[in-house]
C-alpha cells in the first residue's frame, strides 16, 4: 500500500474498526497464483465495491471470505482473514478450529446466477434458516414475510407464496435469493456480480435494495459495471491481477485517483496491468 492509501485507511480506522481484515492473503488454483499478498480492511455498514477487469481475482477474493472456495478442487491459500464481528471475533477464519458452517451463517453470499431451489417461494426463503432453529408455523410465516418485504418482493408474491420459485422472473429470483440469505441473519453480505444476468430494471431494483440494506449490513459488492459502482459504492477497491491497485472513497477514486491505471480503468474500462 502506498503512503496515501495508508493515510486514508488510518483515517477510517479512527472512526470505525474494520469488520474484516485481510492480511497477506495468497490464493493458488492448481498452482496458478491468483491472489498475491492481498491486504484489505472492510468497514462496517458500508457498501464496498470491488472493481477490476475479468480475471483480476475479484470473485476469488470474496469467495475466500466465506470459504466457499474450500469445495473447489485445486484450491490452496495462505495468509489470514480476520472477522471482527459476532461469533467469530478476532479470529482468523482459516484457523484450524473454525466452524465453517457457522461462518457461512454470518457471512452470506449472493451468486451471479440466481439459484432458486426446486421448491416453493415460501420454502426457498426458509431454506437456510430452517436448519438453524426449530420454527413454529407462525415464526415461519413471520420470517418469510419479513424477508420478502426487506427485498421488496412481498407485494408481488404474497398471494402465491406456495407457487414454485422457478415461476418468478429472473430479477425476482435474484431478490428471492437475497431474501433467503437475509433470513439467516448474517452481518456481512457478499455479492458476486449479482446483477450481471439481469435486465436493467431488475438491476436497478437490487441496487436500491443495497442502499437500504447497508444501514444494517456490511456489504461487499463485486461488479464489472463501473456505472453501477459509481451509483452505489461508498468505498471502492480497484483490483488487477490479484492485487489491489488502489482503494479509497468513491469520490476520491472517480475525481482524483492516485494511480494512472485507476483513472484509465474508471474512464475507459481499460487496464494494462
Amino acid at each position: 500500500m502506498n503512503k496515501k492509501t495508508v493515510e486514508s485507511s488510518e483515517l477510517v480506522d479512527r472512526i470505525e474498526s474494520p469488520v474484516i481484515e485481510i492480511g497477506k492473503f495468497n490464493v493458488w488454483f492448481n498452482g496458478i497464483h491468483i491472489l498475491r499478498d492481498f491486504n484489505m480492511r472492510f468497514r462496517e455498514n458500508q457498501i464496498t465495491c470491488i472493481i477490476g477487469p475479468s480475471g483480476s481475482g475479484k470473485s476469488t477474493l470474496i469467495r475466500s471470505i466465506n470459504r466457499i472456495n474450500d469445495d473447489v478442487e485445486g484450491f490452496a491459500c495462505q495468509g489470514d482473514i480476520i472477522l471482527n464481528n459476532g461469533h467469530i471475533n478476532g479470529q482468523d477464519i482459516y484457523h484450524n478450529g473454525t466452524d465453517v458452517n457457522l461462518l457461512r451463517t454470518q457471512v452470506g453470499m449472493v451468486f451471479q446466477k440466481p439459484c432458486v431451489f426446486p421448491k416453493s417461494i415460501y420454502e426457498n426463503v426458509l431454506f437456510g434458516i430452517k436448519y438453524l432453529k426449530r420454527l413454529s408455523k407462525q415464526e415461519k410465516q413471520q420470517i418469510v414475510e419479513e424477508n420478502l418485504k426487506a427485498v421488496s418482493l412481498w407485494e408481488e408474491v404474497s398471494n402465491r407464496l406456495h407457487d414454485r420459485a422457478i415461476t418468478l422472473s429472473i430479477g425476482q429470483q435474484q431478490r428471492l435469493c437475497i431474501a433467503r440469505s437475509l433470513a439467516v441473519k448474517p452481518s456481512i453480505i457478499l455479492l458476486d456480480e449479482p446483477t450481471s444476468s439481469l435486465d436493467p430494471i431488475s438491476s436497478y431494483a437490487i441496487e436500491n435494495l443495497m442502499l437500504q440494506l447497508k444501514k444494517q449490513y456490511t456489504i461487499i459488492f463485486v461488479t464489472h459495471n463501473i456505472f453501477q459502482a459509481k451509483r452505489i459504492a461508498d468505498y471502492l477497491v480497484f483490483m488487477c491481477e490479484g492485487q489491489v491497485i488502489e482503494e479509497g472513497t468513491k469520490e476520491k477514486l472517480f475525481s482524483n485517483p492516485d494511480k494512472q491505471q485507476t483513472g484509465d480503468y474508471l474512464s475507459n474500462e481499460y487496464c494494462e496491468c
Partner: protein
Amino acid sequence: MLLSDILKLEDFMNRKWINKFFLLICWFVTVVSALTLIFLLTVIVFNGAQAINLDFLLTRSRDFGAEGGIFYQIIGSILLITGASLISFPIALGTAIFKSEYLKNNFLQRLSSILVYGLNGIPSIIFGIFGLIFFVHFLETGISWLVGAVILAIMIIPTIVLAAYQSINSIPKIYRDSALALGLNRWQVILKVVLPQGISGAITGLLIGAARAIGETAPIMFIATAFSGVEMPGSLFEPVTALPTHILALAQHATDSQALKNAWGTSLVLIILVFVFSVSALFTRIKLRSVSQR
C-alpha cells in the same frame, strides 16, 4: 447482529454428528460395493487362470467339456461375432444415415427411434425364442450358426445405430453447408461428409455391441449351438459350439471339479474377449471425439 441469541450451540453439534454419520454410511456402503465387485473379478481371474494353459486353448473339448480344451468354442464364438458384425453393420449404418439425412418429420423420427431402440429393451431369451420359431421352424433352416449370427446381429443393431447417429449428429453444420455450396447433391454430400463420420461411429457401436453379443447365451442356445461332437461347421447351416453355451453346459455339472475348473477357464477367456472389445470401443470413441473437435 449476534447469532448467539438465535442459535443454540447444541443444534450445531447435533448436525455435525449427523453429518459425520451420513458420510460414514456412504463410505461403508461404498466399501461393501467395492469389495463385492472386487471379489467377483478376483474369483474369475484366480480360478480361471488355474485352468488356462496353451493346451486348454488349442485342443478340442472331450466328454461334454469335462475334459479337454475349448479350441472350437473360441472359433465358434468368433465365427458368430464375425457373422453378426457383417450383417448388422451395413443395416445399422444405413438406418443411422436415413434417420439423420432423410427423415425430417418429427413424428416419424420419434417413431423410428422407439422401434429401433426398443429392440434394446427386449430380453435376450426372447431373441432366442424368436429365432427358434421364425428361422429354425418356420423357415426350416434347422440349427445353424448363420441363424445365430443373424439373431445376434438383430440384437446389436440398435447399439450401432445409436453410436453412428450420435457421431453423424456431431458433424458441425458448416461441413454440410460447404459441400452443398459447392454444388454437390444430397447423396454426394452423404458420401463425402456424412459417411466417414458415420462409419467411425458405427465401428464404436459395433465394438460395444460385440462386447455384449459375444457373452450372450440365451439367444444362441436353442438355435445355433450344440453341446457335443461339434467342431468346425461344414456349411452355413450347421451348428457351432460357443464359449457362453459351453460355460452353461459345464455349470450344470458343477459337482465335477474338472468341469468346474474348465468352466472358470472358459469364463476367463470370454471375459478377456469382452474386455478387448470394450477397450477397443473406448479407444475409438476417444479418437472419434478428437477428430470431430478439429
